[in-house]
């Protein structure tokens, strides 16, 4: 019973973490976030379902195509909903990304349909024995993929040219620009990667959950809470906060009942932020004057 709750919590937490890493990535390079992350998760699941099930494409063709289209979605958000406002010092990108997400959710409602659909996966029926419990292979795969992506992000940022370019933009965008780095392009790439992360989360949970046009809204909100809890500027912090949030939800439900899940989980988030206002793993930004 405890093992099952832990697996559930890790799966949920990894999904929140993937979405929250998207918030982190765009925040560090541009000090903006994409509030359409939840909708990007839905886009991933809906595109995956449409390409794989409705159009009958092979999984190996449908998956990269889904991720490519999701990246395109991120680029559109950055180019049309963030850059025009951010470049003029306006905070209107906040509302623009929220509105963009709602718009896309409703477009999906009209094109994909109003009914939830089931994304079949053979992994659903595959069981793995863990501490005497039969656990679904997909449930184990979700935290593994989440951890692998977080690790990949860490390695890319530390050891690749793209990572160095990202790091330069994080540390000093103006100096990076003077060094010949196209900061706008870097920010656009960060948005594309963030929506790809969300799409991966959507694809992973689709077989466990169901695919519908409104599936991303609440997940997106919780993921933002996770990003703040972890300290939005810390990738590792955001990932760990995601896992903690998912585990807390599962364990509170198990030991106190579902009536207390949201009450206790969010009360703990508030408590944690009261003690550490910059997030569990965040640090106060230094302002040079």
């Amino acid at each position: 019973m405890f093992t099952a709750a832990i697996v559930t919590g890790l799966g949920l937490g990894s999904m929140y973490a993937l979405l929250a890493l998207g918030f982190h990535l765009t925040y560090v390079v541009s000090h903006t976030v994409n509030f359409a992350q939840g909708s990007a998760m839905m886009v991933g699941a809906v595109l995956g379902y449409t390409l794989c099930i409705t159009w009958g494409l092979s999984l190996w063709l449908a998956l990269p195509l889904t991720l490519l289209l999701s990246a395109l979605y991120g680029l559109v958000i950055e180019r049309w909903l963030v850059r025009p406002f951010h470049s003029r010092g306006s905070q209107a990108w906040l509302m623009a990304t929220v509105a963009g997400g709602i718009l896309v959710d409703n477009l999906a409602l009209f094109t994909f349909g109003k009914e939830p659909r089931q994304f079949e996966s053979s992994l659903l029926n595959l069981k793995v024995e863990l501490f005497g419990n039969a656990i679904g292979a997909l449930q184990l795969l979700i935290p593994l993929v989440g951890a692998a992506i977080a690790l990949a992000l860490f390695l890319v940022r530390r050891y690749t040219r793209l990572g160095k370019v990202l790091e330069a933009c994080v540390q000093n965008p103006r100096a990076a620009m003077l060094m010949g780095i196209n900061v706008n392009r870097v920010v656009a790439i960060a948005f594309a990667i963030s929506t790809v992360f969300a799409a991966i989360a959507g694809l992973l949970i689709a077989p466990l959950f169901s695919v519908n046009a409104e599936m991303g809204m609440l997940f997106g909100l919780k993921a933002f809470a996770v990003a703040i809890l972890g300290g939005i500027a810390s990738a590792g912090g955001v990932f760990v906060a995601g896992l903690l949030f998912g585990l807390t939800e599962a364990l509170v439900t198990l030991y106190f009942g579902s009536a207390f899940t949201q009450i206790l989980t969010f009360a703990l988030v508030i408590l944690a932020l009261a003690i550490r206002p910059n997030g569990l793993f965040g640090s106060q930004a230094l302002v040079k004057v």
Partner: protein
Amino acid sequence: MSFRLPDVQRLLFPVAAAISLNLAVATSTQAAEPPIKVGLVAALSGQSAKSGEALTRGLTMAIDEVNAQGGVLGRPLELVRRDDESNPSKGMLAARELIQREKVTVLFGGLDTPVSLAIVPLANQLKVPFMGIWAAGTKITENGAADNYVFRVSAVDELVDEALVKYGADQGMKKPGMILINNPWGESNEAGFKRALEKRGLENAGVERIQDSDLDVVPQLTRLKNAGADTLLMVGNVGPSAQVVKSLDRMGWDVPVVSHWGPAGGRFGELAGPSASRVHFIQTYVFTEHNDAKGDALLAALKNAYPQIESLADVTPAVGIANAYDALHLSALAIENAGSTDGEAVRDGFYQITDYDGLIKDYRQPFTAQKHDALGPDDYVFAHFVGDQIVPLNP
């Protein structure tokens, strides 16, 4: 590679419905008479849109029949719809608009109990009959108003809970656990279940909540299992109900599930997988291969009007269609009895209905001043999914 556009058909549905309505009105012999308007406030978009579609179909089929027979008071009926988006305040605004601007004679309600509860005071205040054709909240008809204008042709939570507990007890249930949607519908049924269990001297193994967004219900179900639940009493729409079944599969817990009618509201067979059939749920009507003459005629008319209906699996949710169909015919009789479209007269017209041989049952004095619900526990049938089709249990 197959490519299909089912949703284009859905998008065309309102157009087709509007065209068929217009044709019906245009070809009617009472074309010169102004139509009597009836309103529908229901979820026409969002996750519950399928329910609005079913209600529209049921009402439209019945209106076509009434108009083909010469209409009511020599005038054709016309349906005016508004989308409540499952939102009580939007539903109340839409109801006000239909009553005050469109001057509807009877207003029909949709799936959501909170929306219907928001409309009830308005209908009573403006003295316009409000007919519930889906939402099952007990307080909708038992609203405490001295002058009650609210009627219903649908299930009633309190009676459904009694029927579900009786069904479970007949199957050997001793200590059920409740897994309920976390909203007023779930709360309404929790109270009903507890009363029904208490009446039989049965204890419960606890109450757990589910949300639309719950990815995994294993922790909630584990609590009920550890508390000794031998049956699950379930209340939730199709999505969360499917999550319960999938989580039961993951746990390997083979427990009987007795449910309110939520699973019938969509593609439960697809969402819950092969284990969907383990869920026994309540219905007011089920289309089968062997309906009575009225059922066969309506099924044929539906297939004719909506080409996307190819098999019984496509006539969902049947309860929405059937409730709406019977409710419209009863409303037409009430207006006929009233001899006018005055709200108070039509309300009394409902009380004067003596006999109507309907789709769900043959109604005998369905409404009185004390009884505003036309259906009771004897009218409920239990069913389950076999593949994508709803099949009655012990037909």
